[in-house]
């Protein structure tokens, strides 16, 4: 990387002439994205019988009954609680595991690290069907099935390589002088990490948290397989409560979809600026 990694502000508007084409095209793209979302919102406000005659248009009679019904049918009170626990545990664990590993990979060059990186690459191209059964075998022996912690540990393992390399790319970008200066002042490793590294790369942590949290919230092959206890099921299983084989209440389904998506959207809205900043500043530029 030849250029600086600090965010460059106030250079967004590059040209004054004719922004109209920009807005026209951006609006078209926005419609492409928003159309289906609007259909989802519309349908969540309709009764089933209305959807039968008016499947895609705006609701004629707006009613909100689908939301409490979906909330109860999906048992969201329980599943959202579980998912919040899993997401929090996953995010914490991933940040910790990946943070340590990223620091080592970025700042301490030990023999065998290249090989280790290669290993992570190989490991991550293995389809999940390849290790599902043996993993279940192991988890049963360890008493980690039907266990939110057990699920978290799997997420730690599957999300950490991503997080590690993302964080590493942030840390590599920190000028060595910063660290050296601290060490000359007598700082130990921990102090260096705490006072030099973390303050600089925290947008990276934020990005990692967002991606890992999103993954844990939406993931379902592992959640289905490893959790049988109704009291421990995660939010994705709630959604499947609406997709009956022979009947489908689209109003209820749409409301259920919105209930499970809304927290994530809200979370992203809160963090989006930092998230972009994080991406700009660090990693994904190769």
């Amino acid at each position: 990387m030849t250029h600086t990694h600090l965010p460059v502000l106030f250079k967004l508007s590059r040209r004054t002439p004719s922004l109209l084409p920009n807005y026209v095209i951006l609006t078209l793209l926005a419609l492409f994205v928003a159309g289906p979302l609007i259909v989802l919102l519309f349908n969540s406000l309709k009764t089933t019988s209305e959807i039968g005659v008016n499947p895609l248009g705006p609701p004629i009679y707006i009613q909100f009954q689908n939301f409490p019904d979906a909330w109860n049918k999906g048992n969201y009170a329980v599943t959202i609680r579980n998912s919040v626990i899993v997401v929090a545990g996953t995010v914490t664990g991933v940040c910790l595991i990946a943070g340590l590993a990223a620091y080592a990979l970025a700042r301490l060059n030990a023999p065998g690290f290249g090989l280790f990186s290669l290993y992570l690459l190989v490991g991550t191209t293995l389809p999940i069907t390849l290790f599902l059964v043996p993993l279940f075998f192991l988890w049963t022996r360890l008493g980690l099935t039907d266990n939110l912690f057990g699920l978290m540990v799997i997420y730690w393992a599957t999300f950490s390589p991503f997080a590690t390399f993302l964080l590493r790319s942030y840390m590599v970008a920190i000028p060595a002088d910063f660290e050296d200066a601290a060490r000359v002042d007598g700082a130990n490793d921990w102090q260096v990490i705490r006072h030099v590294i973390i303050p600089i790369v925290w947008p990276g942590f934020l990005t990692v948290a967002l991606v890992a949290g999103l993954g844990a919230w939406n993931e379902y092959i592992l959640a289905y397989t490893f959790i049988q206890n109704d009291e421990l099921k995660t939010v994705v299983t709630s959604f499947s409560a609406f997709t009956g084989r022979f009947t489908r209440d689209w109003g209820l389904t749409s409301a259920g979809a919105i209930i499970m998506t809304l927290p994530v959207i809200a979370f992203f809205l809160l963090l989006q600026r930092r998230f972009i900043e994080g991406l700009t500043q660090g990693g994904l530029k190769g």
Partner: protein
Amino acid sequence: MLTSTSIRPFPTRATPRSSRFIQRVIKPWLLLLPLLFFNVVVILAPSLGTIYYAFTDWSGLGDAQWTGLANFQRLLGDTIFWRAFGNNLIWCILFLTVPIGMALLGASLLANIRRGQTFFRVLYFAPYVIASVVVTALWRNIFNPSMGIGVQLAKLGLLWADIKFLGDSNIVLYSVAFIDNWHWWGFLLVIYFAAMQSVDYSLYEHARLEGANRWQEFIHITLPGIRPTLVFTLLITVIFSFLAFEYVWLLTQGGPANASEMLSTMAYKSAFRRFEAGYAAAIGLTTSVICLVFGTLFVALRRRGWEI
């Protein structure tokens, strides 16, 4: 190996040998230990067992019988495998062009505006945060053959629009890719957008002074400016294309008539529907090798000094 050449050397200090060993080797590895531990326990160790099964005749239950390369020989003669492989290639080409083109277009237009920028950015990214089960349910509704968008348009007189998006074996693969892309391209856009923020602004000013139009600016300044990001997304697209599973499985399970079959859906069906877990393991392993070849190819090119 891969990364060692490029790592900034750790400042050396005069320390006794053993202590230096601890500093240079033990400590770094200790920091890696948690990552290594969870990876080995959850992914590597279980996978190794299954890799063995790729060389066996195994129903998925009970004992396996060593058959050497028989599964791979069978794979080469399996028309469905080639069909699936072809579909993965089409998928790859689609995703190397459509979402990346859309994202580049959107990101470069977005980088130029200020009013509404956040709104567009958040909106474009929104589908990416929605769970696949929700996205597919939503689109199944929209593509519903009895009351979906095709039927509604036909009612308005556009008879040609009454397309069975998920039932026509000629277009089903593209329908599924379309849906997957709907949720994917916004993620790319945000990445490109972020990368474009770092392109030196003065380059644009120079170009404008020389009378460059937008297209020339895009080709000569923006694209080179974000090249590392771009190349990187191309690579992940290739790998992603060979692992694609979720959307296909949720929407069509590879049908109708294998028209949207992927290596991954084929492996899944072999393992769980046909009691051919050994064969499924062979398909999975083949997929991994394909991904690895692309990954290594990329690395090799990079090391030979290709500016990508």
